[in-house]
């Protein structure tokens, strides 16, 4: 076989021609010209709620010519946090991940800062609430975009009939649909009296004392309403204070009126408690009510979601947000940011909130009065006060304002509920405080 030898002159000419052709050729945009993007979203409890985010992503991908892959990762069995840990270790995986509460901070070294897109998003949607800033920012820089999907307030969901009958409290009058709350008398004293009355009537409040999130969140809000912190914002131990003692005394009184097995409750126990009709109140987002709507409509018709009772230092409600964060190993950060801006448009947020039946809560102040919360029924207006439309209560998370990496340990070790239980079971106050102080000292390791 003969082979023609390429001369130097021919090589130069061919190279020049090829380069010229490449430079002057018109830009042809392919089907997926802007590359690929993969995301792991939280797999919603509410059936059909994932569809809204899927449609929004697909519409954006079509417009931007990006090939997208969406995985819906459930939080059951902690599958989402296991996947986050695996991707953080492997430095490989999705481009965007839906980070629950503390996971932005625990992975802060590996997350892309998103201040450039958060500025315009906040300008359009209003300021993000304080808990979102606490959990989503490090040194003033945003570690993720607050996601409405999965974000929730775990306030009281009361039985209208039982509260009226046994505690003489009209929760609809206290938190009327369409107008501001008239809840000045809704204090810890009233709450405790109502708990006692409902307990006597055989329909106790369903508040857990276990080690899972729902139990910890309620304890967190009650501690904060007394001004009690185990570790302050600067990282100082503040366990042995009067505020913490007052919180424990309050809990001791409350536990006497709770179901006797509350120490063994997990996050499904309070839902079952409400749906079975055994209790007059639980602390939960409207998922329990949504299940009751399907399985026990006569219970759902009597449910009313409203604000927390106020303590000596204010009215606090647990708020648990999700964030959409971009890994710093993502190969398409610009596309990821563009998508997150699209998902944070008011119309997109409203679409996702409607699909979740009002379960999802945007973190932005201009988006707490969407129609979905006014219209959800039965009874009509049951979710009106769920998104805290009048900023009647301070949204918070248990163990804050401790530095987030310390607070995460306090939260997941359920130090607050353990303290309450130990003290209730007869341990001396100072011994309980010393135990908690020792635990918190350990959580501060770096």
């Amino acid at each position, binding site marked *: 076989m003969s082979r023609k030898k390429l001369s130097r002159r021919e090589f130069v000419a061919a190279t020049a021609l090829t380069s010229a052709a490449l430079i002057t050729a018109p830009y042809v945009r392919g089907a997926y010209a802007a590359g690929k993007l993969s995301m792991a979203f939280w797999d919603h409890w509410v059936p059909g709620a994932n569809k809204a985010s899927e449609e929004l992503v697909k519409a954006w991908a079509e417009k931007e010519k990006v090939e997208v892959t969406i995985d819906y990762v459930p939080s059951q069995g902690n599958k989402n*946090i296991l996947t986050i*840990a695996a991707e953080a270790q492997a430095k490989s995986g999705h481009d965007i991940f839906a980070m629950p509460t503390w996971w932005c901070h625990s992975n802060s070294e590996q997350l892309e800062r998103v201040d450039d897109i958060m500025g315009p998003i906040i300008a359009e949607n209003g300021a993000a609430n304080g808990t979102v800033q606490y959990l989503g920012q490090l040194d003033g820089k945003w570690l993720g975009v607050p996601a409405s999907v999965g974000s929730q307030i775990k306030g009281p969901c009361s039985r209208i009939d039982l509260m009226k009958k046994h505690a003489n409290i009209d929760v609809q009058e206290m938190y009327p649909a369409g107008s501001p709350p008239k809840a000045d008398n809704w204090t810890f004293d009233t709450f405790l009296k109502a708990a006692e009355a409902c307990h006597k009537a055989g329909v106790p409040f369903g508040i857990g004392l*276990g080690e899972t999130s729902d139990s910890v969140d309620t304890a967190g809000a009650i501690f904060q309403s007394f001004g009690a912190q185990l570790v302050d914002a600067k990282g100082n131990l503040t366990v042995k204070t009067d505020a913490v003692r007052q919180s424990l005394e309050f809990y001791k009184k409350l536990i006497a009126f709770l*179901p006797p097995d509350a120490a*063994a409750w997990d996050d499904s126990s309070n839902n079952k408690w409400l749906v079975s009709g055994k209790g007059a109140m639980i602390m939960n987002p409207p998922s329990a009510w949504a299940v009751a709507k399907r399985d026990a409509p006569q219970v759902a018709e009597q449910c009313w979601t409203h604000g927390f009772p106020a303590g000596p230092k204010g009215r606090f409600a647990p708020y648990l947000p999700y964030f959409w964060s971009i890994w710093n190993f993502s190969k398409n950060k610009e596309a990821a940011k563009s998508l997150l801006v699209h998902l944070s448009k008011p119309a997109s947020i409203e679409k996702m909130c409607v699909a979740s039946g009002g379960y999802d809560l945007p973190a932005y102040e201009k988006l707490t009065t969407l129609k979905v919360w006014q219209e959800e029924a039965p009874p009509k207006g049951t979710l009106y006060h769920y998104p805290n439309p009048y900023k009647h209560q301070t949204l918070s998370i248990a163990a804050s304002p401790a530095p987030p990496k310390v607070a995460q340990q306090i939260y*997941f070790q359920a130090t607050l509920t353990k303290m309450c239980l130990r003290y209730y079971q007869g341990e001396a106050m100072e011994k309980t405080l010393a135990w908690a102080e020792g635990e918190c000292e350990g959580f501060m390791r770096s």
Partner: protein
Amino acid sequence: MVDVTFQPNRVAGSQARKRGGMRNALRRKSTVAFVMTLPLILLILILVVYPAFYSLHLATLNKSMAKFVGFGNFEFLFRRDTFWLVVKQSCIFAISAVIFKALIGFIVAHFVHNVPAKKQRKWRGMLLVPWVIPPAMSTLAWLWLFDPSYSAFNYTLSFLGIGPIPWTGDAAWARFSVILVNVWYGAPFFMIMYLAALKSVPEQLYEAAAIDGANWWQRIWYVTLPMMRNIIAITTLFSLIVTFANFDIVRILTAGGPLDHTHIFATWAFRVGIEGSDVPLGASVSLFMVPILAIAAVFILRDISKRGNEA
């Protein structure tokens, strides 16, 4: 049996020697065995050896995984009361569960052994059911039976005027519950191993014992148990390792509560490492059981090999 084939013509050209060497290597039983087990060896290397060394590496890092701290994580753990509580509970959980599994397995194996051969297969199959169901699934069923508010056990006991029992709400009952489920799950494994051992005991030994006038207890003590010693030791060791490393039963039933009183190494490692985002400390907790199990393994295996040599 020879391991290498006989070669009549040893003097040949280098090419032929090379080809012959290759052929010989392939003809060698040990080579073939190695090649055939290579996929498994590779799997073990990737899925067991690498993660084991990686977790060793992780255990030497600080919380942010940016600094080498040597044994710092272990020093930290040794100062924590909760860690020692977990050590104590892991030992209570594993040792009591293994003892009960062995006892129940031994008794049931004797019953099954005495069932006529035709019906024995059915009994064996039925008794193995708890062991073949994935524990995460069967534990969910147990969770419903123990449910704090709607326990089926409590419902049944209420007819007898007993209860309600806080199966997972009280520290002592919660420990009892997790051990009970572990025994229920693991006893069939002991049963099947002991049954196999019982079948291998020569009938003549029992006949000789009977002639010597040995009663039922003496036959068990002087014939059955000595003949089953090795299998009992191996089964106990294997079960001890698996029970110490248990995760799913405790995680699903109690998640370590109440007040951390049912946490064992694996569940506490998960709480600290994954939920608390302190992966190095979690790795240290899970590695702590390695020396305990290694010591147990050395003693048990040494005993077995000593008896093997005596035999």
